[in-house]
């Protein structure tokens, strides 16, 4: 029989094992074998193995292997099934709360997509260039951005690029609006910092695809907030981290001076901590924008419009040219966004060039 029979025999559990031997779900091996189109037989040995195997091939006593010896033991698939049904059970109550809370996100995204696309190009492009100039005060950069946008428009990617920009605009803005206050709160409380950092670590290390799985169950794929949430969860981390870090790094003696002159907490925050943390906060905003861009491409899997859709088409239909040109568009957008925020950051740094010298 199976490798681990001796355990259950030894413990005198044989009877319990065989009593309610039911078919149960497939083992993981069977599931994967089925997925890859092979026969279920091919995988069975991997799970249990006959008692004749050498010691070399001793399978790890996993749930599936033990199940082979004793059908009463649950299989791994039952664990994943359990997680799934557990999630489905709380899904409805979760939706009751999350749906209304996140509804504005859908509106923002729809509004921004509408505004970016319906504003005629001859208004939109100068407007964007004006923003670039305002942020960077550099004509060279304005020239580069103008060239890039005209190029994208010339090859008929203007609309897709605007969709992508609209989504990034909304998501990055919300990241900053939510992330900066969270970062400030973290900088003030060590307990909160200790509790938040593992969550941030998790958000940052989870592969982006993994976010999408529970979100797909929670929201319908037709709702913009589905990808909005995925992008925000992924991109908010740096702005939180760097706000917290920036405020904690503010010179202790300056904080002491602020206290000694009787500043209230609010005065301290607005007059000292935020201005002195601004270079770090801006570095966080830069990273947040770049991560939004990375995620907005992935989010086209769940119906986010924009250049990512073309990339996806390129992969699905093996349309090499479509995919590559869209990829080039994404690179251009990335360079533009990075250069503009870096230029703004450099200006902030110059304005407070500062502490290091004093």
């Amino acid at each position, binding site marked *: 029989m199976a490798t681990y029979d001796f355990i259950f025999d030894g413990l005198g559990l044989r009877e319990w094992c065989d009593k309610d031997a039911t078919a149960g779900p497939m083992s993981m091996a069977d599931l994967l074998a089925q997925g890859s189109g092979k026969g279920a037989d091919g995988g069975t040995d991997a799970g249990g193995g006959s008692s004749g195997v050498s010691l070399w091939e001793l399978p790890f006593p996993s749930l599936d292997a033990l199940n082979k010896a004793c059908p009463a033991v649950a299989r791994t698939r039952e664990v994943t099934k359990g997680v799934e049904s557990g999630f489905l059970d709380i899904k409805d109550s979760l939706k009751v709360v999350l749906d209304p809370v996140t509804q504005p996100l859908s509106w923002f995204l729809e509004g921004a997509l509408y505004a970016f696309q319906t504003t005629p190009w001859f208004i939109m492009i100068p407007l964007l260039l004006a923003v670039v100039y305002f942020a960077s005060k550099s004509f060279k950069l304005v020239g580069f951005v103008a060239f890039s946008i005209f190029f994208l428009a010339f090859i008929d990617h203007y609309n897709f690029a605007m969709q992508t920009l609209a989504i990034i605009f909304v998501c990055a803005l919300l990241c900053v609006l939510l992330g900066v206050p969270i970062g400030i709160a973290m900088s003030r409380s060590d307990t909160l910092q200790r509790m938040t950092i593992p969550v941030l670590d998790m958000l940052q290390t989870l592969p982006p695809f993994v976010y999408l799985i529970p979100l797909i169950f929670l929201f319908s794929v037709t709702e913009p907030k589905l990808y909005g949430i995925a992008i925000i969860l992924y991109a908010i981390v740096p702005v939180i981290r760097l706000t917290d870090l920036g405020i904690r790094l503010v*010179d202790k*003696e*300056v904080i*002491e*001076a602020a*206290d*000694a*002159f*009787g*500043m*209230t907490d609010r*005065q301290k925050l607005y*007059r*000292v901590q935020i*201005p*002195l943390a601004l270079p770090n906060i801006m570095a966080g905003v830069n990273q947040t924008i770049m991560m939004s861009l990375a995620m907005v491409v992935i989010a086209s899997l769940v119906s986010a419009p924009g250049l990512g859709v073309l990339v996806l088409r390129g992969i699905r239909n093996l349309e090499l040219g479509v995919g590559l040109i869209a990829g080039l568009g994404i690179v251009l957008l990335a360079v533009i966004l990075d250069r503009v925020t870096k230029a703004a950051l450099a200006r902030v740094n110059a*304005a*407070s*060039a*500062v*502490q290091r*010298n*004093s």
Partner: protein
Amino acid sequence: MNGAAAMEKTVKLSIRNLYKIFGPDPRRALEQVRAGVDKPELWEKYRHVLGLQDINVDMKNGEITVIMGLSGSGKSTLIRHVNRLIEPTVGEIVLDGENIIEFGEARLRELRRKEMSMVFQHFALLPHKTVLDNAGTARSVRGEDRSSYEKDARGWLERVGLGGQEGQYPHQLSGGMQQRVGIARALTSNAPIMLMDEAFSALDPLIRTDMQDLLLELQTELTKTIVFISHDLDEALKLADHLVILKDGMVVQQGEPQEILLNPNDPYIVDFISDINRARVLRVRSVMDTGLDAAPAVAGTVDADATLESVIALSGGDTALSYAVKRNGTHVGYLDMKKLVRALVPTAAARDGMRNAKRRSPG
């Protein structure tokens, strides 16, 4: 300075029975300290740092109190208790008859805004604000707008020698200039008490002497109550009306600086003062005789505040002479050159081997 006028001044700020222990359970450690455990032992056995131990200091209105001691002796800890940047374990800080340790948050803030200003070792200016705005910090924190403090701020910046540089940013100034901004900031606040934690220690010696002169000059007009921290004896002797010497969180001696120089009560202090040029620091008034009935034959007249060095130069090194001592034209006593020379001999304890344990702090 240096208590020339013997007029009695009122006590402005008084620190009473102050203890500060750093650690997780300072109250329990306090019992050990009261039972006689000293700083190293408290750390060895109980893992608490004894910051300050039974501090009693009276600071008089209009005087400069200098707190001095080696690194780690608790100077910064002590001055930060005065505006409660650090809370004491036990003890009182009495300002104009009120114990400020009992003040609630709002009153404490009021106190910090109106009664006290502080000058920091590393200046602690706001790097993103102009010199003018920095000077006006205290006033703008109180809610005044620029028009109401601008004139004062400009005036003080002018006074400390920064006229015309109001629009610059701190990083555009040298260290000495930045500290002038720090002083202008403290002065613009109009607070009667000024706390200065090693305010001149980060400056190079020439600028430092400059700043000391500036402070003394300002003090003759303003007569603020100043608490000044220093680890430099020359600086302390130059500025102090009242000198407090700290060691391991304890006051080892306090009083008029000349008095401490002539009668040090602890080997630690002897060690401290053994390096200085006594002739340059001691004054005629500290070694003259006031009680003589029969006037000796005098070789001339010297001022009570003259240094002994200047009298030696005057006498040409002749120890047989005596001088009449005058203050503001009135006769106050006689100075015997032999007594003068005796005052220059370092106190006995100085030869008791303390010199080889040379532990003066740098700077």
